[in-house]
């Protein structure tokens, strides 16, 4: 059992969610597609990125409108 499968099985068990070998195979395939991008975002330096509060997706960012 590799670290991915250990993480999945233990994580879902902690939440009381069943998991079988087919689930693991699908999740492994999903992780092959999205995993690199997820890890890249998790490692990105976002220290200088400011959140947008409040967020209104229907309008430009408030600070852009005010500047």
């Amino acid at each position: 059992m590799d670290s991915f499968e250990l993480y999945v099985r233990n994580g879902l068990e902690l939440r009381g969610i069943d998991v079988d070998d087919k689930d693991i195979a699908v999740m492994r395939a999903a992780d092959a597609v999205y995993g690199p991008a997820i890890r890249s975002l998790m490692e990105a330096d976002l220290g200088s990125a400011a959140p947008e509060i409040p967020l209104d997706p229907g309008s430009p960012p408030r600070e852009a409108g005010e500047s």
Partner: protein
Amino acid sequence: MTHPQDLSLRDQAAGVASGELDPGEVLAATLARIEERDGQLRSVPSVFPEESQRMLAEAPRGPLHGVPIAVKDMFRLPWRGPRDGTPREQLPPGESAAYHRLKDAGAVVVGVTNMHFWGAGSTGHVSAYGPVGNPWDPSRCGGGSSGGSAAAVGARLVAGAVGVDGGGSIRLPAAYCGITGLKCTFGVVPLQGYTHEFASMDAAGPMCRDAADARLLGETLAGRQLPVSDESALRVGIVREPFWTDLDPEVERACEEALDNTGWTLQEVELDGAEHAQIAAVARLTLEALHTIDDEHLADADPIMRALVKYERLLPAELLVRADLIRAKLRRALAGLFQRCDVIAWPTVPAPAPPIEAPVVELPSGHYPADAANVRQSGFGNLAGIPGINVPVGLHSAGVPIGLQLQAGWGDEAVLLDAAEHVERVTERAYVDALPPLAGTPA
């Protein structure tokens, strides 16, 4: 005599208004065409002969008086709760805001359109009502999640349909089926009575054969005018990375040729954070819906979707925080960019509609699930909240359409419709007027 569904939406509306078309006959002919032509597409799983007759009898003389419209199965109708591509109602029957807008315009809701299960895919091949076929080749995907709306319009079953776009769900199927699909700015079309009313990414919009029809239906849905202007001198931003990379060569060429022929000023631009837009959109889309999925919902899903939900439940909370920081970064960058550009442009989908049996696309770097490749092109617009439109600009050697995506600043739907009409003119309407084999020659 021309079948009413071989007429444009605006010609149907004008014909009914002038008395040249009998709306009762239009409705009957539309229901008959769906019955006759939809077998391979599964685009309209439920039609409403009685309810649409009743709507017609009570219809005010609005801009869509007596015109049949199909609605994605995510909106409450007085006689049907929306099913979201699943076997059961997700909300009780009722009057959604979209239904109200259509009713007030005099339109007739003729049926609901098929969609990807839970709206959670761009192919439309997973649905309780069977996979959505493509009118250009029913063995290929009609797209998702508003695939039924796109296929029904493409096959000339209806001239107008309502879609919703949370990660590309109007623009992507519109590209697959060769129609014009407009995702409005977030909030422009009210989403009361919609199954994913909680979502921060979703925006409804019209799906029609061309931009003029999309304008007519879009004005109804938005509840405001979308006035025509001359858009022959636009400044267009070309964001190469990542949106013009790793594309099917025919898709890339058709989109470039269409833009080159517009006479617009094209300028290469960069957007800070764009490299993370795909995964930020996927994280937002999936994680903000997770709380709605309970055991009963999961029991309806196929084993692959159940496993994917489990995978999503293990994603770290920090991922969503980071996705939102990327969202903020992109929105700020865009606000600056739209000071210098009127629209931004890139291919709507990186490759044409794949086979239903194997919804995988071939790109220069390899084979990928269509969903992952597609959301790279479309999720950006949902994160930003801006409007976007698919304009048909080519036909791939695989026999299915190619689409160009244009996006504009918040509230600039009219600019996009003008721009799309300009593209239609420079392509001599070759692609918006092209008939898929299934639609044959107009009678």
